[in-house]
């Protein structure tokens, strides 16, 4: 990865007595697609808002394109595209009017890409925005965020309201964007199955802290899934092994565990519990619980 597009040092944000971000030190580089993961209220949206300077740190520093986010200017903003969780537009405009209104502010607005996206996402440019469904407004936000060919694209739950067909098309298009524009895409989502198909890097937040920041492939190598089946005696209610990062399910006869591969000794485990252990690769959905609260050592 090249120079950091966003870097934060000791970034903290407090809302009264609630700490939304706690001493986050993070550097995002590209081109890549970064999955920003975390449970509800983990601080994902707050972090994205800090990247564009919409919210300012209570402590620490945040820089986007090397510029403190407090003073982001025309040059930096022209390189950023944003899709918020609940996009809002001027309801009395049509889609076409809204896009024309926005396009004038950008030094380069790709009308071909606009037409392509409208077709891809099945949007009718003559529709009035206030008559659109929630999903269509989200599609419009996606179009508006991509037509100026941003090099940093921030997507906050962009697929939550899209149907599976459009969602699939959109995610494939993101891969094209990374290749064509050398863009860095930060995508925050709870739809892990879909995100997994595009992200190559994962930043995981929990309770305002960065608990994981690694390549997805590395994570998949680091963690593995054990499907345990008891042979003679019952399995314990909990497993004490340090390598067990998360117990996905445990009952007397079977268990599914997420384990740290480097620390795991499957033979010793089989012997100790007199159980069969099937080792399987993990997907992001399976990894997620271990990432957010699987820090048991």
């Amino acid at each position, binding site marked *: 990865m090249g120079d950091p597009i966003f870097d934060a040092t000791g970034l903290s944000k407090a809302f009264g007595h609630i700490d939304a971000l706690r001493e986050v030190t993070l550097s995002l580089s590209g081109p890549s697609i970064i999955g920003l993961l975390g449970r509800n209220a983990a601080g994902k949206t707050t972090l994205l808002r800090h990247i*564009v*300077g*919409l*919210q300012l740190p209570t402590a620490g520093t945040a820089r986007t394109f090397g510029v403190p986010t407090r003073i982001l*200017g*025309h*040059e930096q*903003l*022209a390189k*950023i*595209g*944003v*899709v*918020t969780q*609940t*996009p*809002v*537009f*001027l*309801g*009395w*405009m049509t889609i076409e*009017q809204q896009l024309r*209104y*926005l*396009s*004038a*502010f*950008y030094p380069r607005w790709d009308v071909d890409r606009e037409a392509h996206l409208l077709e891809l996402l099945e949007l009718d440019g003559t529709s009035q925005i206030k008559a659109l469904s929630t999903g269509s407004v989200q599609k419009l*936000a996606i179009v*508006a965020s991509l037509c100026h060919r941003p090099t940093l694209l921030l997507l906050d739950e962009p697929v939550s309201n899209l149907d599976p067909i459009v969602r699939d098309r959109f995610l494939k298009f993101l891969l094209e964007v990374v290749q064509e524009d050398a863009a860095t895409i930060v995508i925050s989502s709870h739809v892990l199955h879909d995100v997994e198909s595009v992200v190559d890097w994962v930043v995981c937040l929990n309770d305002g802290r960065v608990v994981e920041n690694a390549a997805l492939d590395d994570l998949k190598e680091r963690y593995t899934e054990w499907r345990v089946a008891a042979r003679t005696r019952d399995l314990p209610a909990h497993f004490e092994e340090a390598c067990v990062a998360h117990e996905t399910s445990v009952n007397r006869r079977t268990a599914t565990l997420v384990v740290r591969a480097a620390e795991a000794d499957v033979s010793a485990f089989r012997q100790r519990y007199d159980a069969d252990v099937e080792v399987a690769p993990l997907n992001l959905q399976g990894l997620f619980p271990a990432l957010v609260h699987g820090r048991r050592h």
Partner: protein
Amino acid sequence: MRPRALLPLLARPMGLAVAAQGAAFLLVPLALMTTLTPSHPDPARAAAAALFFAAIQCLLLGFFCGGAISQAARCSFAWTTPSYRRRLRLEFIAAGVAMAAVVSFLTTAVMAPGVLQVLIGLVVALAALAAGTALTTVPEGSLAFLPLLFAFLALREKPVEWVLRSPGLFTVAALVVAVVCVGAAFSARTFRWALLVGGPSPFFSGTIGGYHSWLDILRSMPWWPAHRGRQARGATDRPAGRTYADTVVRRVLASFGAVTPSKRFLIATMGLWVVAYLFVISRVITARSGAGALDAAWILLPMAGLASSVRMINPSRAALPWSRDEHLVVTWVRDLAKLLWFVLATGPLIVVLGWACGWNAWDSAGAAARAIAGIGIVFPLAQWSTGPPVGGSPGSTGALYLKGFAFTAAFTIAPGWMVRVFPSIAEAAWVQACVLGLLLLASQALHWHFLKRYFERRDLVGESA
């Protein structure tokens, strides 16, 4: 292509309708004044009228500009679109100077011809335009609106005296106000707040404080019944031992919405509102004895009525599992509670102040009472002017605009008609009381009738978005 930020926001049907109303509001009185003004008017009075008129016009224009800017500021793109705020500010200044110039020129040309008057009028108009915009965009605008309005009314001809005494200083002060207001309206702080607070609110509600703020303050108090009644929210079945009336009351209280602790500081608004109210009324009454009561009623009652009657948009209510009959009863009782709140807030104040100022003419007391009743009679109209009873989408913008205009006109005309015309129709006090009582009952009955028709026929879910 050169970006256009502000003009597309203003040049739309709503904007044209406001412009048409503004033009009518400006040109008709001007035409009347040209015919009524004596050939050698008092220059000070003419200047006073011109300044007052220009400022009012531009303040209203500022409200509209501010509403449009505020709506755009709350859109997702407002923060991240490059140079968006800067373009808005530049276009506002350019358009503002042009609008202020036209208003100032027309006004002063008719009432107080002279280059100096036009120039001073221009600066004052610009300051008023910027102030109106700032009041509807800056977070603290809703707090400052009413106190400033009262101060504006209380000062009356004072600014004119200041202008005549030291025009240079006054012009500089107005310029400073304009610069500060423009700076605040387009500041990063204002735009951050707008985007983080939520989506755009309808033009006719939410931007101007008053009753909404009062209620926010009151319901944030620990002693406010909504706290205790919150358990009742959403309940369809009446718990054992609770009467039907009790359930309706609880639902009415709950329908006013959730408590927002962050708005507790808004208590200051209510205090300022009442203090300003007391100040203005006492000033007017003491200054002009009996006739002042009429002035007070005419000026203040429509304003208080407007502030008290605007419907609170609370879309979540529509999602509650209430039957249509329950919606009907709760909505009607809630609207009635708002009317009683208005009467209780205004009636005693006028009586006490009148008594304190040595105002013992029962005719004048009767005038105030009739003015209050006049507002009370048109009060239900307000419930339909800002959207359907369950809140949410009010239908077409044009219809909303017309309703809002009709309602504002009714509120402005009602007290005056009641004070001036009604006594000539019914002279005896007991006849007046009976007629007004019957009219109040009739207006409530009509309101009930229309609510019933509404809740019988409309798709409630579709309007909750």
